[in-house]
């Protein structure tokens, strides 16, 4: 059990490399064996070629731009609405008891089934995707913000009152900074579900965006191409999430 103390750096890296190597070899073997329908598991070479083609031509970046724009706007709309609702619910017991249960229980539902309604209300273009993303992102932000509000140390509020801070000053100088970690957590969760909401909407009904590219590969039965775009999307999502968690981590006061 003292092996645990010795396990650091090198062995971990070796295990990771081993896992990846084994996976790649198994993949290539499966591709070459012809066991499955030919193109379902394309050879690594074909995937690499498709990846290169994807990354080196314009369409990826144009569609990435659209999707990023839709996700960005979703985050703003859903995020702002979520924070406002969260502040109100967290700051007022009555409101919380009256309305928070709805948010709590509606949160873990498949938002994509609201998409037909969004299409009707906002059209077949970016509007419905943004609506989808905003709806998805709203819930975790609102709930996290409300929780954050309730966890504020009461004495901090009393300090503000004892110095006769106005409502606006209390909000900006005490409430918002105090709930910042909670808001960021909510935003990270919100980003995750906004990404899903927008991408899925794009796969269902769109002629642009990363989700559209995935479906396009499917329709054309371009398997290497589908793997390529999926790889790119997942890498982007992971990087985005890592960046956001960096933001959350560095904003908190460091402890000794």
């Amino acid at each position: 059990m003292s092996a645990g103390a010795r396990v650091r750096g090198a062995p971990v890296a070796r295990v990771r490399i081993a896992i990846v190597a084994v996976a790649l070899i198994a993949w290539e073997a499966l591709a070459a064996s012809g066991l499955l329908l030919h193109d379902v598991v394309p050879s690594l070479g074909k995937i690499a070629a498709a990846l290169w083609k994807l990354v080196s031509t314009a369409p990826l970046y144009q569609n990435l731009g659209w999707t990023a724009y839709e996700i960005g706007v979703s985050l703003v709309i859903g995020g702002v609405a979520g924070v406002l609702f969260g502040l109100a619910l967290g700051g007022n017991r009555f409101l919380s008891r009256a309305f928070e249960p709805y948010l709590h229980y509606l949160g873990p539902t498949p938002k994509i089934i609201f998409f037909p309604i969004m299409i009707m209300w906002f059209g077949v273009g970016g509007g419905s995707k943004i609506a989808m993303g905003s709806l998805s992102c709203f819930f975790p932000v609102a709930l996290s913000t409300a929780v954050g509000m309730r966890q504020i140390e009461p004495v901090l509020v009393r300090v503000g009152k004892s110095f006769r801070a106005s409502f606006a000053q209390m909000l900006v100088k005490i409430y918002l900074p105090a709930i910042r970690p909670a808001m960021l957590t909510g935003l990270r969760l919100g980003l995750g579900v906004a990404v899903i909401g927008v991408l899925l909407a794009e796969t269902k009904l769109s002629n642009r965006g990363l989700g559209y590219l995935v479906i396009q590969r499917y329709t054309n039965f371009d398997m290497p191409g589908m793997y390529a775009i999926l790889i790119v999307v997942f890498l982007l999502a992971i990087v985005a999430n890592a960046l956001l968690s960096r933001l959350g981590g560095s904003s908190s006061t460091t402890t000794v």
Partner: protein
Amino acid sequence: MSAPALEVQDIVKRFSHGAETVTAVDRVSFSVAPGEVLAIIGPSGCGKSTLFNVIGGLIDGYDGRVLVEGETVAGPHAAIGMVFQDESTFPWRTVEDNVAFPLEIAGVAREERLRRAREYVSLVGLAGFERHHPAQLSGGMRQRVAIARTLASRPKILLMDEPFAALDEQTRFLLGDKVLQIQQQLKQTTLLVTHNIAEAVQLADRVLVMTYRPGRVKRIAKIALPRPRSSAVASGAEFGRYVAEIWSDLRDEASRGMQDDESHLKAG
């Protein structure tokens, strides 16, 4: 005989929990002269924290009046500065931004308020820590920041609610010294709520002993120890005598409090 800085007149505060009504404070009256330190001491449950909140304007719905330099208090007053018992520094602000907070609220310009804040940071002995965050400081240092913050608003009356309760004995003594020093330097009128007898005697000119619930004024003892003072005064015979006197006042109240707790526990 100058006018009192603070006058508390016939304060009565009751709390109702459903069907029960509890009288926390029952007709408490006293006054504090300018530059004086008055300690309010009493057993747990004597209503001293309630009194603290009433004078500070954080509670309403009471009978009686609180007057600050002749003006009635209705809500937090500019002339009253409060230091709370709990950890109250803003963790997301640096020490100097914490101390500058009341000046920020009052609309003082950035350069000016940081300059004044740094004065008070030095005053409490934290020079060099201006850019630190509270999480990097010890509990005693954080309380000093809280005190500096309140002092920065230049209150006529400093109201403190067991400010050293969360600290260990030694830190308490040292911090008490610091507060004594500052109070004497600024001639700050101070009202200190505490349950610690030694602390009350060390810091105060007069000690007001409260009864157990409903809280009334049992006695006001004059502490005739010399000024200026330091914690060294604790080694004198006078000190011990005062502590013993006050304890004998308190003992009955404290034991009544304990019996009350026990009977509640048995019943509940």
